[in-house]
């Protein structure tokens, strides 16, 4: 893997990451093979469908998080945003079951985007470090869930059949939930590759000074990333509540860490400017397979957290190793030039 990497000297960073994606893809397949060897029914159609459903939420949120990470920021409030938006749409649905699904989805996306924009404004205009801002809004949004709901649950009996059923409708054998995850990933891929804003996100994170000289407003790019991340989190909030058929204060509690882990495993750099949708999707699948496999393979619950933690650490170490390599390469190049 390293050999192919150095063989691509001179190509852009994004293409330079391609081997990481290939390596991660192989690793994911290897993991899948190992799990299905230990527990053959894991690859049954029904289980794969449920695995996709389970992973779709993680992948969506990770794609949103990736936008933010690309701009050298971090969004710790994604899970709290999803919980708050999920609770609000559940309460809306319980109060107006006849309103149909369009208002629910519009509220979810708009409200998520507004919550994201609040983070974005603070980072952009007040120049507060994103980790501080989103650590604050993480608690604030989670607290608001309690305030809007009064601490009470919204149960499946209070939600309309459409609200619960929409995510489960199969299209070509795959649920709407999985399709939405897929479409979000495809849209993000096209946006990052072909739109000016998408390219600017990379530029703003990769080298903010150079980006500023090139006329890119780095703060505005960060704002955009937070709005996108928030909108996706809002949509994920509705999907989460509908999938698990309950809205309560602790929805997706602590999930932001898994989201960031999926990004890091997928090759997104915490220091900005590096990463891609394909890697994030693979990172999400990789984590999703581990989460779903550990219970069926019969690993003790005391080990489950340790095992997934170990995997994340290894992925980070491998990533860091790859980047050190890259640094040396640039040095050699400039020496050759001089």
């Amino acid at each position, binding site marked *: 893997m390293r050999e192919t990497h150095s063989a691509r000297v001179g190509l852009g960073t994004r293409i330079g990451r391609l081997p990481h994606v290939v390596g991660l893809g192989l690793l994911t397949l290897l993991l899948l093979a190992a799990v299905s060897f230990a527990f053959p029914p894991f690859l049954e159609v029904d289980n794969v469908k449920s695995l996709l459903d389970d992973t779709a939420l993680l992948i969506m949120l990770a794609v949103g998080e990736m936008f933010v990470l690309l701009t050298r920021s971090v969004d710790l409030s994604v899970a709290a945003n999803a919980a708050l938006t999920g609770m609000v749409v559940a309460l809306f649905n319980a109060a107006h079951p006849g309103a149909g699904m369009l208002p629910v989805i519009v509220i979810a996306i708009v409200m998520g985007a507004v919550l994201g924009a609040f983070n974005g404004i603070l980072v952009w205009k007040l120049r507060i470090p994103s980790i501080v801002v989103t650590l604050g809004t993480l608690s604030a949004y989670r607290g608001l869930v309690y305030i809007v709901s009064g601490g009470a649950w919204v*149960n499946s009996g209070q939600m309309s059949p459409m609200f619960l059923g929409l995510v489960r409708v199969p299209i070509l054998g795959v649920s709407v939930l999985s399709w939405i995850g897929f479409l979000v990933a495809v849209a993000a891929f096209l946006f990052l590759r072909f739109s000016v804003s998408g390219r600017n996100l990379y530029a703003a994170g990769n080298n903010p000074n150079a980006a500023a000289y090139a006329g890119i407003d780095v703060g505005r790019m960060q704002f955009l990333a937070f709005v996108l991340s928030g909108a996706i989190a809002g949509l994920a909030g509705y999907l989460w509540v509908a999938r698990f058929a309950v809205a309560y204060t*602790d929805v997706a509690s602590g999930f932001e860490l898994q989201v960031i882990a999926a990004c890091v495993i997928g090759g997104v750099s915490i220091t900005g400017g590096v990463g891609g949708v394909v890697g994030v999707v693979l990172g999400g699948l990789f984590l999703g397979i581990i989460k779903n496999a550990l219970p069926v393979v019969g690993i003790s619950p005391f080990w489950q957290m340790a095992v997934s933690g170990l995997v994340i650490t290894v992925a980070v170490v491998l990533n860091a190793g790859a980047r050190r390599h890259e640094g040396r390469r640039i040095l050699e190049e400039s020496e050759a030039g001089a």
Partner: protein
Amino acid sequence: MDRRTLLKTGAMMAAAATLPAAISSRARAAGTIRVGLVAKSLGNGFFVAVDKGANEAAKALGDVQVIFTGPTTTTAEGQIEVIQALIAQHVDAIAISANDPDALVPVCKRALARGIKVISYDSAVSPEGRIVHLAPSSDELIGKALNKLAAAALPDGKGKIALVSATPTSTNQNAWIAVMKGDLPNYPGLDLVSITYGNDLADDSYREATALLQKYPDLKVIVSPSSVGIVASAKAVEDAKKVGQVYVTGLGLPSECAGHVMAGSIKSFAIWNPIDLGYATIEVAVDLVRGAKGPGSSLPAGRMGSIAFDDKGVGAMAVPFTYDKSNVEQFAKVF
């Protein structure tokens, strides 16, 4: 300070308003026992149900009057004000579901010093502030009830069962599971194949339940002694289209489980019944007023049988109450 004075004035006015009635009732029947029933907060469905049971007991006993009261928010300060007002009314007994076990001790001691019988129910006051505490149930009773529920969910009392608990380190759940295991020999048909942990999170519980369904295709019952776990497991069974084949049971609130009972994934489940709790609380309070000794004795509690209190004054009321299709809708409105 202003708010506090206001509250005090309010409490005094309330006391003054009830005073003439109290005096006249005293004059009429010297034997009337008045019990102050203090909720964690007013406007909570659970305590409305407790009050309902308390009044049932008062009616059955005949010469008992229940004064149902509580603060508007779940604070210890609010409860202290309320208890002071009850002391001023010279009630015979006070039963409290405490918002804080220690903060209420001084005011409870003052009540005890005036000869008022102070007990706690549902949520305990520290031992020095009350004579007895009436727990809604006990580890022993809950563990056994879980096995009974699992057996009831099996058509012929035979089959594989699995657990979706809270976290691997939850004290309550682990105690109940230990009792379940010890009690299993009484149910030779039950085959406990796996204990999993959903961490009291909907997604983790759902995932564990889904894994159980895959791993044990002939699984018959999922038992979840967690209110999050039971709902998530029921949803997992519904999504796997195994309703009728696999039943979910355990501990949950009627309002949260009602939808799944109607969907058929939950046949029956249990939780302590607040009406029975209120009923037993009044019975025990009246026993004490009539001169019964609390700790280390067994007190009669009307239709609830008799309740044994240990040396520390803690007594467990009864086995958790079972809910099914016939009564879940009715209780779902309550709590």
